[in-house]
């Protein structure tokens, strides 16, 4: 279906859809599982399968749209019936805040990340890498480490998620050696 758009303002000589969206890293932060290209394929090729979105939510920021405070309050419940995977972090801090400092080796300014919105190392690592502008192949040369309550520095993925979240004090991205 074609439609004449009355262009009051127009970019000089633009042909919007010839741009290769895939290459622009636009969907970097949401395309967690690199094998499942169904999502960005869909925009270009007019075909997509619903199945390719199955595990998608795990990597999407802010989806489904449940407010952060609601997620937090629901998460920290004693007699809840959620799956073990959902019984993530709660308590251990006097404040309601679940923000943790994140540093990167060689970068002066630290950032902060809300740990309560993550349920897996995958989404956490992806978000942190994006925060520090590390893309694609470069990601392999970094490791996520954390300092626990006892002050020891450990490799994040060496422990189960729940243990990690409960003992987490702050995070640091370091270059992997070897």
């Amino acid at each position: 279906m074609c439609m004449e758009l009355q262009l009051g303002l127009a970019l000089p000589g633009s042909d919007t859809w010839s741009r290769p969206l895939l290459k622009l890293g636009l969907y970097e932060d949401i395309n967690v599982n690199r094998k499942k290209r169904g999502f960005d394929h869909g925009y270009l090729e007019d075909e997509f399968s619903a199945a390719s979105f199955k595990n998608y939510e795990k990597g999407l920021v802010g989806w489904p749209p449940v407010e952060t405070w609601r997620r937090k309050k629901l998460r920290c419940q004693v007699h809840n019936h959620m799956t073990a995977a959902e019984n993530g972090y709660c308590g251990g801090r006097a404040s309601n805040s679940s923000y943790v400092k994140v540093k990167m080796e060689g970068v002066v300014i630290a950032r902060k990340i809300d740990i309560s919105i993550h349920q897996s190392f995958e989404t956490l690592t992806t978000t942190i890498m994006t925060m520090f502008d590390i893309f694609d192949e470069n990601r392999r040369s970094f490791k996520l480490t954390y300092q626990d309550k006892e002050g020891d520095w450990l490799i994040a993925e060496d422990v189960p998620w729940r243990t990690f979240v409960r003992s987490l004090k702050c995070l640091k991205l370091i270059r992997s050696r070897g």
Partner: protein
Amino acid sequence: MHKKMAFSFPDEVLEHVFSFIQSDKDRNAVSMVCKSWYEIERWCRRKVFVGNCYAVSPRMVIRRFPEFRSIELKGKPHFADFNLVPDGWGGYVFPWIAEMAGAYPWLEEIRLKRMVVTDESLELIAKSFKNFKVLVLSSCEGFSTDGLAAIAASCKNLKELDLRDCEVDDLSAHWLSHFPETYTSLVSLNISCLGSDEASFSALERLVRRCTNLKTLRLNRAVPLDKIANILRHAPQLVEFGTGTYTADVRPDVYSDLAGVLSSCKELKSLSGFWDVIPDYLPAIYPVCSKLTSLNLSYATIQSPDLIKLVSHCPNLQRLLVLDYIEDSGLEVLASSCKDLQELRVFPSDPFGAEPNVSLTEQGLVAVSLGCPKLQSVLYFCRRMSNEALVTIARSRPNFTRFRLCIIEPKTADYLTLEPLDVGFGAIVQYCKDLRRLSLSGLLTDRVFEYIGTYAKKLEMLSVAFAGDSDLGLHHVLSGCESLRKLEIRDCPFGDKALLANAAKLETMRSLWMSSCAVSFAACKLLGQKMPRLNVEVIDERGPPDSRPENCPVDKLYIYRSIAGPRFDMPPFVWTMDEDSGLRLS
């Protein structure tokens, strides 16, 4: 001489007439009739509403309305609720407080939504406004209990302190003790967002005891069930009550205490809280259920049978917030028991699970739509939907004013026909002629936007995610929705064409949010240059947008109309596109 006679209505008479006009829309209309009405109106406006704190500067507001007593400000875009707006984006209230502190010593009410409020701001409020009465902070952050202590200590006439859904640095529960023993004017207190640690029960009890006008009390999770009886005993006049944690060892004395004290609250109309509920204690609230008009069980992780029992005791319910544990069966009971229901919100108990954990489908929503003739506002999370269900819902409930449907998995098709849900949502906008707010989900093509542009003439707010095929979709909405004020879009293939073609429309709206779409940096620059009354802000944590090719899509875009010009408090990851941006950034 004749002209003068026609307009010689004395100012005082007009002022008196205007005093009956409370809504901002009407006040704005009144002020545009003629210059003299503008002048009279501005001097007698007592309540100011600023929907976007960056649309106007504090000084401009103060200059125009020299005698307001109440201000409401909103800051961050709505999608900030879902973590889409990075930390540090803005929405600071301090500049407003600072300006008003000097100009308005008689300010009485401040209502803020999604703003950053510091302890410094709270201390300034406490110090500057001697007759301060109402502080409502909705989804705000940046302050601690120290700031609250300052308010408690100084605001002798405080009537309302409401901290709904705020992010508070809970340093100490003893801030409550800062209310002097002589202070008795509290009418409404909502501290449900405060931390789960130690709480000052005795200070709370004493406060409740001496504030005999207390009508609303929403406690935080730290208050245990056995303490509630002590608190409620002193406040049988309560109309709205939020429990703390609703769990305790099952002891008969705790139960009977609770049941007894609740049944003596004859005015109770609204209940909330219910963290950590154990079903054994639920029947304690049955005696008050018949009078309840509002029930918030959205944190209560109890199963359908208990929810059904509870709901069937509440025939006068008008507003229900609940988790999807209620299931279709529970919603069917709701539909037959609660004929006065006006608003329903069903939240997901397991939003990230791939498989449904409860038996809640589109059937529940259909049942409620068919059974509740007054239903007008719905927020519903589910995992499947059909066009057939949506059409049934639309036909049976044309009085919807707010319809927000979230099918949890993006791009889910009609589960019966595997088609897009265009026709279903099309029916919603076609039949519900008074629809003001709509949130879409599921598999949707440009067609649904064509329906929206054609029929949704009263629509003021639209939320879109993972929908559409091309710019045509966005064009339909921008060119067709006459009443549109707020549009928020994420992950849709909308680019430059529709945006640029409808640039003028953006000046008639409060704001437009687009994230993970296909709007290029070049288009943003162009828009910023050509539309001086729009603030075009690019949010991009990857770095300066001009470090990438111009035709690269920006990560996030927030456009809003403003007479204050570009703001100066932007963090490093926000760039404003204004008239000079073309020169500055090249």
